[in-house]
């Protein structure tokens, strides 16, 4: 790579940071859903990437095929996924958690659900890569930055959603109940929190977040049925960086991964496709120093 001169370097940096922020906002939303489900139920949701894909396809169908407004398509994605998540919690996870002697059994269930959603998506929407028309045309140009407007819009929506989610968790009644549940399930139950109901709401909320991000990103990158697994892996990485079960950690992990990816793709592309290899290696080293991530609880 040619060594950039000073103004070029500034421009290059600004571009990388803007891309990182945009990616990070999406990733943080995905990680938030995963970490919420984990904090409430101690379930590692393998199906998170598949929920993302389902959300993407619903937006594709409602906005791209039926021609309804994009916002309505997003709502449809969120609502469908929330319903799916709630039903999965009530009829699958709850009985299994109650009856199994080892809590790891839920992982098998989560993996089976992931397979099931994969199969459903494949049957309903096929295996083709799907895209939708641009939601906003045009590109933002300045001395230092080139950014399509639709990316800026999607990034802004994602950041607003993160803020709304945090406010909801902080100040609303269900939010407070869910935080209490995450802290100590038994104590929360003794204080009169309806554990079952809020577990279900939490699972639905986590699934909804995955679905909405899927819907948001379908406008930029499109969606195909095979990306569920890789998305799950990315979500796991973010949660590991930030610490499992912590809202702040998920947001930090999402932005850190987005930034690393953005920097890696522009700095390391001369050496071939090794960005993720470097990130993985760095993650291993990081975890050996801080096994619980940035903000995780000191247990396993």
């Amino acid at each position: 790579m040619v060594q950039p001169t000073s103004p070029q370097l500034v421009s290059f940096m600004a571009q990388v940071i803007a891309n990182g922020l945009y990616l990070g906002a999406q990733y943080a939303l995905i990680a938030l859903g995963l970490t919420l489900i984990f904090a409430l139920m101690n379930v590692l949701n393998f199906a998170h990437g598949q929920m993302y894909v389902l959300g993407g396809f619903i937006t594709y169908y409602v906005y791209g095929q039926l021609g309804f407004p994009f916002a309505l398509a997003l709502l449809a994605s969120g609502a469908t996924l929330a319903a799916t998540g709630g039903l999965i919690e009530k009829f699958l996870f709850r009985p299994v958690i109650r009856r199994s002697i080892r809590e790891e059994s839920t992982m098998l269930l989560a993996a089976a659900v992931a397979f099931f959603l994969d199969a459903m998506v494949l049957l309903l929407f096929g295996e083709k890569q799907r895209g939708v028309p641009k939601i906003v045309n045009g590109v933002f140009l300045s001395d230092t930055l080139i950014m399509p407007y639709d990316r800026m819009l999607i990034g802004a929506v994602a950041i607003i959603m993160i803020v709304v989610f945090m406010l909801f968790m902080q100040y609303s009644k269900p939010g407070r109940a869910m935080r209490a549940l995450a802290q100590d399930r038994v104590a929360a139950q003794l204080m009169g929190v309806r554990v079952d109901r809020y577990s279900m709401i939490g699972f639905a909320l986590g699934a909804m977040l995955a679905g909405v991000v899927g819907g948001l990103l379908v406008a930029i990158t499109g969606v195909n049925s095979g990306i569920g697994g890789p998305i799950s892996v990315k979500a796991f990485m973010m949660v590991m960086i930030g610490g499992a079960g912590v809202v702040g950690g998920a947001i930090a992990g999402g932005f850190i991964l987005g930034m690393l990816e953005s920097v890696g793709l522009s700095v390391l592309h001369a050496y071939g496709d090794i960005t993720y290899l470097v990130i993985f290696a760095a993650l291993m080293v990081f975890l050996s120093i801080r096994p619980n991530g940035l903000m995780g609880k000191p247990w396993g």
Partner: protein
Amino acid sequence: MTMSKLIWALVFLALSLVAVPWMIVATGRSDLYYTLTAVALLAIASGGVWLTFYIGRINIGQAAYALLGGYVSTILVVHYGVPFWLTLPLAGLFCAGASVLIGFPILRLRGVYFAMVTLVLTEVARLLALALPVTNGAKGLVNIPLPGPIALFGIELLPDFAELANPRRAFYFAAVVLMVVCYAALYRLVHSRIGRLCLSLQQNEELASSIGVNVAYLRLVIYAISSFLGGIAGAMFIAISQSIYPSSFTIADSINFMLNCFLGGLGYVLGPILGTFLLYFGWDLLFKAGQFQLLIFSSVLIALMLTLPNGLLSLRLWKQTERTVDG
């Protein structure tokens, strides 16, 4: 191992080495050789995963070691001309060595953290195989020669697989014997003093270490054994398919290894064999269902979890194990 256990193992060997080939000849379904070989080899890798479960770690990284073992064996055979049967233990040892280096930092993690980091490890292995020059990237290594003969003092112990009329059957015999040996060793290990110590690790590491168990050393050894099993299974599998790609073992395989253990039940040494058998055969049988294969398969899995959340073998020993195994 008691006498009756030994007899059971011999009966199993006799059944699988004599009765099954006879039935295959009788029914003409020679494709079953490959299926059963795959089951045997995947069961070995799943046995490794089961062992890490036994020390209380959820291991979703076995595909990484299977891939590593496959590549080590292939590269030794193709580039250095080492006989395959020698590369098999070498691949296992290489994986065990690598797992000691990797396990040293990551075995400090527990629960979901360990599960997630091993899952990521699978992806690392795939990316590494894509990036390294010696693995030939995405094109992979193909046309790997079949295993040669083993001769000791001039007596041929194993024939040259390339000259056999039916190498599939030879692979089947080799895989079944390998599986029985591995599970016998696993059984012995679990019922030895080390096995008891592993159980103490599964229940409470702090408590175990407070009464003088060298926790860090023990879990490293167990993880190395687990990866050894993954490595030889991978090497053998690659020898059968005669080609290896970075996608030969992926995250889906890692998850399947874990599912095999769950399905068989985590409290039973032989659980992974049953789990692998059912999962692989179930998947194969559903092939006729075409596009609905995955849907039916996953629905059955979910239904199984709902009715038997503690694994299939829990049916038999339900009352006795409820307290003793997981206490």
